[in-house]
């Protein structure tokens, strides 16, 4: 079967820098990142900008059914559909496929605190826990934190109902979502896909997980490349990124404007050891860029700042793409886990469409596992 070309025809991007592509493309030219070091001190994070939710989620009832990560995602998905000229195109949305990279969670922090305060002195801990959860949990909180309900809410709010799949697994979920959507388009297993993810960093339970592993950057803001010498770590970022991927033939037939061509996406999961990220990136590079010209290009790296893997990625990129400008998306918008790779790809595609580069390579090296690369080219 001959491979179909895959176009990016819509971008929706929301982060601590703002919403939409213009703000983010401008940030590639230099920006002071938005960092909040107070709300969750001593931790830092990149908070999402305030959004007028009703612009993409008109019904208040829908907004109430979602926690922040879902709202960010549904909002960005709406931006992407509008950008692709598909908003409210019921017929096409009804056939559009959805692949979402999602985490989940979000808790009622007050209820959790009360339970943890009461548990040690309860006469019967099990009975106490049950009673408190039965009485204090909002029934709808479950749906507002369930992983596949970001996709579910996109279906409800925007009417995307072809098929909906949710991938989990931190950074690599974002890579695999794009990889599999692109592979399905190329092989004729679907024409139009909405792909992306969302992340709410402004959550103590998130900080807790990554603090347990020792992965959070504990000092004043510094570039991800400069962090490994000081203990390393990432600064979580809130935001969301969605892309409309379309088969070139069907996009062309509806007169859609291509923002960029998605040439290749590759992913691997290696056993982490010294040198493994370097080798993995070299293998993936060979898969996505066979003989690619390297001038007029850029690399958008999803480097985390975590010790070891960040230096290895920097070294590998310096060798594989000598002289090519490398931008770290983590320096601009922080680390958005599942949404980081879609965000890097969205930013790269927007920059290509704005004429900043002719081609771009987007990288992902997960903070604890998974590596991915995508290559896109400007369509002139």
């Amino acid at each position, binding site marked *: 079967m001959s491979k179909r070309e895959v176009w990016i025809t819509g971008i929706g991007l929301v982060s601590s820098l703002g919403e939409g592509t213009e703000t983010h493309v401008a940030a590639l030219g230099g920006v002071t990142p938005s960092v909040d070091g107070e709300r969750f001190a001593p931790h830092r994070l990149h908070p999402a900008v305030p959004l007028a939710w009703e612009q993409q989620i008109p019904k208040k009832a829908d907004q109430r059914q979602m926690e922040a990560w879902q709202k960010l995602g549904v909002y960005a998905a709406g931006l992407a559909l509008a950008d692709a000229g598909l908003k409210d195109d019921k017929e096409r949305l009804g056939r559009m496929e959805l692949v979402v990279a999602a*985490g*989940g969670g979000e808790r009622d*922090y007050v209820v*959790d*605190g009360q*339970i*943890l*305060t009461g*548990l*040690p002195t309860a006469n019967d*801990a*099990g*009975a106490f*826990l*049950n*009673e408190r959860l*039965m009485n204090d*949990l909002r029934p709808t*909180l*479950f*749906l507002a934190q*369930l992983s*596949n309900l970001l*996709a*579910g809410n996109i279906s*409800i709010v925007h*009417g995307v*109902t*072809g*098929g*909906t*799949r*949710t*991938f*989990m*697994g*931190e950074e*690599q*979920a974002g890579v695999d979502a794009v990889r*599999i959507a692109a*592979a*399905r388009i190329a*092989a004729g*297993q679907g024409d139009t896909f909405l792909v992306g993810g969302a992340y709410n960093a402004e959550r*103590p*339970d998130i*900080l*807790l*997980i*990554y*603090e*347990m*592993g*020792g992965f959070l950057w504990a000092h004043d803001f510094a570039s991800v490349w400069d962090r490994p010498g000081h203990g390393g770590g990432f600064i979580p970022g809130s935001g969301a990124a969605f892309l409309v991927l379309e088969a070139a033939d069907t996009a062309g037939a509806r007169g859609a404007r291509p923002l960029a061509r998605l040439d290749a996406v590759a*992913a*691997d*999961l290696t056993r982490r050891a010294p040198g493994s990220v370097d080798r993995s990136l070299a293998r993936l590079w060979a898969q996505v860029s066979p003989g690619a010209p390297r001038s007029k290009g850029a690399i958008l790296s999803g480097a985390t700042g975590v010790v070891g893997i960040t230096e290895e990625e920097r070294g590998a990129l310096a060798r594989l793409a000598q002289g090519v400008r490398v931008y770290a998306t983590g320096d601009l918008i922080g680390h958005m886990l599942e949404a980081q790779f879609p965000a890097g790809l969205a930013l790269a595609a927007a920059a290509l469409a704005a004429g900043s580069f002719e081609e771009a390579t987007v990288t992902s090296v997960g903070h*604890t*596992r*998974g590596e991915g690369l995508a290559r896109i080219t400007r369509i002139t």
Partner: protein
Amino acid sequence: MTTPHRDRSGRPLVAVTGLGIVTSLGEGRDDNWAALTGGRSGIHRIDRFATDNLRTTIAATVDFVAAEPFCAPALSQELAVRAVAEAIGQAAIGQAGDFPGALFIAVPPVEMEWPQRLALAQASGAAGDVTYADLIAAARSGRFKTWHDLFLFGSVADHVAERFGTKGSPVSLSTACSSGATAIQLGVEAIRRGEVEAALCVGTDGSVNPESLIRFSLLSALSTQNDPPGAASKPFSKNRDGFVMGEGAAALVLEDYDHALARGATVLGFVLGCGERGDSFHRTRSSPDGAPIIAAIREAIDDAGLTPDAIDYVNAHGTATPENDKMESLGLMAVLGERMSGVPISSNKSMIGHTLTAAGAIEAVASLMTLQTGRLPPTINFQVPDPAIALDVVPNVARDASVTRVLSNSFGFGGQNTCLVFGAEPA
């Protein structure tokens, strides 16, 4: 070189060469099949945790598998490992620790659980009101480093991939109660694309804990007819009142048919078609007209290159919620027409409860065992027929039948509808 085998759409045929299963009824194909066709229930009173103050006190937990520390991801991983080991053993594919294909695994969305939160709270030494700031301060000690990996969404897949040596980036997925079917669908698509010659497709769920049970309970999704436990799950009955949570795992080895033939593998059956449709009506309810369910069933049969007349038996989603069973019946009647009243349909969930993330994979294994043995597991607890559901639900007792094609349905919260068609032979 012989001509490659292709389906009616010119795609590689997807053969099933290995099956593995663990449920509350036991471990392995033999024990499970004997129990499922014997009409035995695996649902029992919960003794894993206190059930005081709960409306539902029963579940089909898997209590014979240990996991350390005991929590949903650890148990889900152990269940998956056992199911995969059995499936790969049957397929006799690759070498130990070297599976020649991709991994697609449906895993429950995990998060830190109460024993861990409590341990952190105690380690923090916080006096008075405990907040997350205290837990985070305790986390900073570095003493809880292993829990970071334990509660990442991608860890179960990574550990299963490492253990069995699957190739490439393993995909962890969740489409709620249709997750197991989605894992199979992803494997089918990868083989049809020619991307892989084999795929390991897994669904696993070991997440019966107080909070997950309470969440479903607060949505009024669970049966509260706790006594006797084995009679609680009553799919398609008039007095059905919700599902019973269950645990388990299942694994399928899928292979390009030509790859299976070339290595002399025993072919157990085929995945002939997959259908999928989102529903934008409501977060937990189906469109009242059943259109998305109807479309998913129709698409699965179309994708198989068949017509509705070709379906001999339906392995139902059959959760025993008032809503699901009504809508599933409506959808089947719409696609199969009058003939549906004579097509046997049964729900494994009457015996093993709703195994949630694992259900689609477990029921796929049961569907393939029906194809192999010609035996239909019953829908047990069927005492009070629902006049609104005129189906042959294989009531209470297993039955022998000539079955060459099975439709397996999976529907989930968030508007997830995934249907699969299995066959004894290519279509």
